[in-house]
């Protein structure tokens, strides 16, 4: 009898073994889009003052706060007429002070820093050959010696290298002598013969600027771009050689990303100070590479110096994996920034969501 009691007791223990439950929490914050002045250089304004239909705008961004609607967006910044009119952080612990992995949006910041480097005469010109800067990194293939800085800025080097390789071989294996490693890859086309989106071309620029100035890319960015913009809290990862990863691996606050967008919208000027020449901004955000030859102009997406240009120049974009975006819409004097979960894969529905929300935000501008 006692044995049965013991067994029964033990059985009960097994049955209640499901006790102890980790509480599931809300993922998203309450709806809040009010901009806050934190003394980082942004002037705050209201939606109505800057010509938005507030009701339409609020309806546009409401899905981002819907707990039942999983969208990977973690923050949204909207600036118009040079003023921050809305900011939203949809994850409670990922607020305005947290840096985000901006992925390939980094490339466009590299592009701006290279523009500064030209102004400072660190390079002789766009057609300067990379071989003249780092001859020790080249192999015996003479055709590679024709690679110029322009080819690097337009992803036109012809080097056979895909992004998966750079991720695995460079990041994972902590490759030393990255420039030499990249340049040892064979050519699939002659330099200048075709656009090919990948990460190795910006990386060679990072190596080149380090070689020319003795300073890594991030130091030049900090001195001539970030400090004047009031960007103090950022992290830019470097490779084993001490070169900043120029294609990704920059972490910034969303508000600081919006400053970059505003700087480009203002043709290089921030609070009255010309940080980058207007000519460079114009040139780098105009079509330099056309990967969609043959498509009608109203559907053709092209590339500047890493900037992505929507058909007819409707928008200039800095895009990163997962949905990180700086959108500049010159006609509306508008900057929109999204940060998203940086590592979530397979979120193809995100593009649809962002497209819908972005269009709705643009349409909420009334004048």
């Amino acid at each position, binding site marked *: 009898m006692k044995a049965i009691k013991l067994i029964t007791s033990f059985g009960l223990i097994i049955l209640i*073994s499901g006790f102890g439950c980790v509480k*599931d929490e809300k*993922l998203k914050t309450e709806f809040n889009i009010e901009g806050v002045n934190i003394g980082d250089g942004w002037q705050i304004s209201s939606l109505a003052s800057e010509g938005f239909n507030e009701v339409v705008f609020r309806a546009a961004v409401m899905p981002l706060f819907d707990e039942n609607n999983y969208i990977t967006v973690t923050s949204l910044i909207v600036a118009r007429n040079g003023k921050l009119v809305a900011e939203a952080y949809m994850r409670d612990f990922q607020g305005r002070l947290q840096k985000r992995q901006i992925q390939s949006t980094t490339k466009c910041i590299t592009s701006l820093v290279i523009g500064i480097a030209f102004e400072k005469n660190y390079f002789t010109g766009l057609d300067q050959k990379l071989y003249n800067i780092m001859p020790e990194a080249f192999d015996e293939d003479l055709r590679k010696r024709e690679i110029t800085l322009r080819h690097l800025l337009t992803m036109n080097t012809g080097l056979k290298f895909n*992004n998966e390789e750079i*991720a695995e071989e460079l990041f994972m294996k902590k490759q030393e002598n990255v420039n030499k490693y990249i340049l040892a890859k064979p050519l699939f086309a002659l330099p200048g013969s075709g656009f090919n989106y990948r990460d190795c071309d910006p990386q060679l620029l990072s190596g080149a600027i380090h070689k020319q100035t003795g300073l890594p890319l991030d130091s030049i960015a900090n001195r001539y771009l970030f400090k004047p913009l009031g960007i103090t809290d950022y992290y830019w990862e470097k490779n084993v050689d001490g070169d900043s990863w120029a294609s990704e691996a920059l972490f910034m606050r969303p508000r600081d990303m919006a400053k970059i967008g505003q700087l480009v919208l203002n043709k290089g000027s921030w609070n009255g100070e010309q940080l980058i020449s207007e000519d460079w901004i114009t040139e780098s955000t105009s079509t330099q590479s056309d990967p969609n030859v043959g498509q009608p102009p109203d559907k053709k997406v092209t590339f500047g110096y890493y900037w992505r240009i929507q058909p007819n120049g409707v928008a200039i974009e800095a895009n990163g994996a997962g949905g990180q975006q700086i959108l500049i819409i010159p006609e509306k004097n508008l900057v929109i920034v999204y940060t998203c979960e940086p590592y979530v894969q397979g979120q193809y529905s995100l593009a649809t969501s962002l*497209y819908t929300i972005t269009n709705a935000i643009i349409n909420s501008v009334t004048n």
Partner: protein
Amino acid sequence: MAYNSFDMTEYFIDIVNYKTDAMLFTQIIFNMKKYLFFIPTMIVAIISVCISPVAGQTTQEANISERFLKFSLPVVHNQVKENLNAPLRWDGVGSGLGVSHMSTGPNVIHEVSFIMSVSGLKNRYKYKGYALDASFGYTLSYKVSSAGFGNTIYLGPQIRWDARINFFRDWDDSHIYWFSTYEFGPSLKWSNDQFEKQNISFTIQLPFVALVSRPSENQYIDQPPLIKPSYYFKSINEDLGLVTINNYFSFRILADYSYQIKKGNMIGSSWLFDYKSCKLPRNTTIITNIVMINYYKTFGKK
């Protein structure tokens, strides 16, 4: 003004290093062959299992009456909340394998146990992930009281290594979120063997001292080498640090029932409840419920 749509495939053009799960696991296994980093851990485990009965013989030679080798088939239910990733609960079930060795005498029990499991995880948005658990521990229990009717109370120290690797595949396929601990503390055990051929026991373990390894707040390394087994072994011991009760709390309850089916052979079942919570660098809670079916091979003087 129309904001022109863009090609969605193109939109994700710079997503790097995406691999299907099958590819990832295949590469991990392939690399294991190459590096064989798991061998030292296995050797330590095997040596420990061997040392346990030897220790029993040397220190308690006259008292050791039985030795047990226990094989367990666990069914695991995991609940995880990893705020480094998102404040969501991930739930899942899995299975694995457990092996333990016990040497018992009238006044002392030495027990070395190892359990390993793999579980699937899912959050409320139906995104998937995985959890890999390994636990290795040694418990020394001294008899402190006999309350009659076969009831015995044991008390002694326990030392334990637990490693948990969470991989929230659909949420973050670039990082692992580990939670590994080295714990030392008391173990209190109640055992009842008043019925011939049956034994039931209940154990509570509460660590006093713990070393914990967790990922850093900002995982700046964009592409860690997830396909290299050495990365996992390295990570789970990264920046090990002493923690206080303010930052870390854990306990473990084990209920065990065994029945002798014939001489030298026993079967039984166990329930293990493991709770771990750490505030570093952000709140993390893991609750593991394991129900095990056990087979015991007994050896000894009895």
